[in-house]
């Protein structure tokens, strides 16, 4: 019997348990999965005193509504998120990047993300979730990971095995910024595209399509013309690869992507831009900007340093 738990009153649209994902399984067809926005994940955990790779609850657009039963516990929410806390008679507007304490009977209503897609709820303690291949990350397409590989459902419970003892409050001064230029390295099939197609890719605006999820982000814009072949022999994919199928519209591979694909690769999003890329809402306008490998590596070092700095401020 678990005496400390959350009850799911409303699960939200796409609410799953995630951590940093599972390694070394691409060769059998299991993607990395894991949180979409790594920085916000790390910050959420640090705010409630968790170890860096503890599972969190990731939500998209609309978050869950949860009622808490048990001893005092700290939680935090990161991202650009609107939420309220219902404590007996009071309804308190929530603030992101700040830990606060829930008591027996309190309700947390994560209403929506604002100008972004993903938000994170960290719970200060150890959650009772299933690990598969060293990760609890939920892959709803293959039903792998916590919660039998499924999204959170109405009336289910989130059981807590152990609550962190330290209930002091922490906060961080941080504002998410929106990306407009996605920096990319040319892909291995860049020369499959016509001069005009290459020009379009780097100069024109693209719009994020509604048909985007944890597997991939589809973009719409002027057609990128292929002059060699719209198929390649199926080969491995990684996060951030931009494939262009026969219709000429780019698709960016995200955390739950299929491990093998047969469309030409025009580019790959640099690692430093991944967290911000995934937060682009449908309808957002973006441009691709070319960088070389050594710049991409430097930009990642900067991104990582900035992340470490933020975490050390908590």
């Amino acid at each position: 019997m678990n005496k400390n738990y959350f009850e799911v009153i409303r699960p939200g649209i796409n609410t799953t348990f995630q951590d940093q994902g599972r390694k070394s399984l691409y060769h059998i067809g299991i993607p990395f999965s894991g949180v979409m926005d790594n920085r916000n994940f790390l910050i959420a955990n640090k705010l409630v005193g968790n170890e860096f790779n503890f599972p969190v609850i990731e939500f998209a657009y609309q978050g869950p509504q949860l009622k808490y039963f048990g001893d005092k516990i700290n939680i935090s929410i990161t991202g650009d998120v609107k939420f309220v806390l219902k404590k007996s008679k009071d309804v308190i507007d929530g603030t992101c990047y700040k830990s606060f304490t829930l008591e027996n009977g309190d309700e947390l209503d994560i209403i929506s993300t604002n100008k972004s897609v993903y938000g994170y709820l960290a719970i200060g303690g150890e959650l009772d979730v299933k690990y598969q291949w060293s990760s609890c990350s939920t892959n709803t397409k293959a039903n792998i990971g916590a919660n039998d590989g499924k999204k959170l459902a109405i009336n289910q419970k989130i059981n807590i095995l152990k609550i962190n003892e330290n209930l002091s409050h922490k906060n961080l001064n941080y504002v998410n910024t929106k990306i407009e230029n996605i920096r990319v390295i040319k892909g291995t099939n860049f020369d499959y595209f016509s001069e005009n197609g290459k020009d379009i890719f780097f100069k024109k605006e693209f719009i994020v399509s509604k048909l985007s999820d944890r597997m991939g982000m589809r973009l719409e814009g002027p057609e990128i013309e292929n002059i060699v072949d719209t198929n390649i022999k199926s080969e491995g994919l990684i996060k951030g690869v931009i494939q262009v199928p026969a219709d000429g519209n780019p698709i960016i591979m995200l955390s739950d992507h299929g491990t093998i694909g047969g469309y030409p690769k025009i580019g790959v999003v640099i690692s430093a831009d991944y967290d911000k890329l995934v937060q682009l809402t449908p309808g957002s306008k973006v441009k691709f900007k070319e960088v070389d490998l050594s710049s991409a590596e430097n930009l990642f070092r900067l991104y990582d340093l900035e992340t470490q700095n933020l975490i050390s401020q908590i």
Partner: protein
Amino acid sequence: MIKNISNLGDAALYCDFGKDVNKDTNTKVIRYFKSIQKKNILGINNLTPSYNKLIVSFDLKITNFKTLKKEIENLDLINSETISNKRIEIPVCCDEQFSLDIKRLEEKLKIGREKIYENFFNRDFFCYMTGFIAGMPFLGDLDKNMRAKRLETPRVKVPKGSVGLTEQFANIYTFESPGGWNIIGNTPIDIFDSSKEFNPNLINPGDLIIFKSINKDQFLNYNE
């Protein structure tokens, strides 16, 4: 043996073994894959072997393209003879209930179903790669007269265990999934078992597969 190593983005190596898709090229890919896997090189996250490519993805916090390229170029390859390839028999039932596209195959290949089954059963298939969905094996090569294109409109749901054909390859749907391959039958055995911590997939790159025909009774009463 690798024709060229380039970078795929900032966190992966793209090892190109040449244009050809055949067993020889793929055997080289698998030899590199197993050699790198065995060496446990710091920072490597994932290895994805395919017909003629090997993608090595890594954690940019730990290592980088230049360092790993050097490591892979100077890699001691494991002896081909020590690579253990299994020989696995897969029972397949081609009852009408499971052989969803047999009529289409007869039309496209212009040969009767008896001949199609004869060309499919009791011969060696080589596992080129596994993936796309968890544990799905890509097995080759089908005879030249057995090569059909994908369905014009892919199925929204291909039943678990379905065995499909497309061009020179056969595959097995390890769980229900969308897909466009020509379904010839269904296997009662679990090709992918997610409850296994080690080796959840029955078939690995380099293994030899032989399909064995079973009837519907044998299918329904199949015990592993």
